[in-house]
């Protein structure tokens, strides 16, 4: 029974982490949320008798995907609501019209 409860708790954590990661305004934490999604997902895969998929998800989903997101955030912006104040259209060229 304990495993069943564990499974349901895991399902709730998974959904909560997914919602958290799309609602969180601080993108760094949002990305960590997707890391949690991957982590719980790989536990799911393991419980559903898919150890190969679990290892792949762990290595690629948790480690590599998270790190490339973090690199991107570092190169762009961490705040979801950040707007560019200078007028965007000032770069517009005639050719693109």
């Amino acid at each position, binding site marked *: 029974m304990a495993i069943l409860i564990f499974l349901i708790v895991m399902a709730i954590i998974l959904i909560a982490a997914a919602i958290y990661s799309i609602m969180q305004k601080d993108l760094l934490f949002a990305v960590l949320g997707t890391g949690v999604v991957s982590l719980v997902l790989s536990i799911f895969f393991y419980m559903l008798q898919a150890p190969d998929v679990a290892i792949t998800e762990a290595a690629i989903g948790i480690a590599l995907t998270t790190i490339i997101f973090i690199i991107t955030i*570092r190169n762009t912006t961490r705040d979801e609501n950040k707007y560019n104040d200078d007028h965007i259209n000032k770069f517009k060229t005639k050719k693109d019209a």
Partner: protein
Amino acid sequence: MLKKLIVFLLIATLGYTLAVTLSSIPIGKNRIGSIENPETVAAYYLDKSPNDLKVANTITAVVVNFRGFDTLGEVSVLFLAATGLASILYRKEEEEEEENIRHISHRLNLPSSSLVQTGAKILFPLIIVLGIYVFIHGHLTPGGGFQGGAIIATGFLLMLVSYKGFETNHKVMVWLESLAGLGFVGVGVFGLVKYGSFLQNTGWTGNLNDLISGGLIPLIYIFVGIKVATELTNILDILLNIKPRKK
């Protein structure tokens, strides 16, 4: 507001459709059918993998042999992604010189404490060995080329972020990358020339659960492992070495 409504309707439709569809695909039901008289591909694979190919891990047998062509395609997807990434983030030499920051490293680094560096130094060989172990034993235990390759890439990632001066040897990387890819295709062409079917396995397969068994399958998985490791390391290397824009 209208957009929100449309999106909501779209999402509700998709969710409802999936729920209805899945309710008639019950989980846990055996859809494979009899193994002796296979009607589905799954039954056939479960039958042939231990008996004909002598590969203990059926998923490896499926990925490398039965559906090996998919894996070749997948490896090339990764290769193309690395190429595309390099092309999108490529900078002309003039541009680099213009910004005059060519020789300054801007790589993302952890706060370099000696603790982190020592830890990385100790962990790095262990991770590499683990990765190699995973893809060498791909036909026996869970894991294989992708998993091993991804683990090795994590090892390189650790070194790249903890040492400012750590650089992957580009020459070696290019050679390894190309040779691993060519090795994979080469094994396939070997099957084509010798047995008349691309990627065909050799007749000799050894015994189930031996390290050296399964014919060419472990060899292919080693090539896949090296290829995946180099491609992923390449992707990380390119991304980590982006120079931040001038403030």
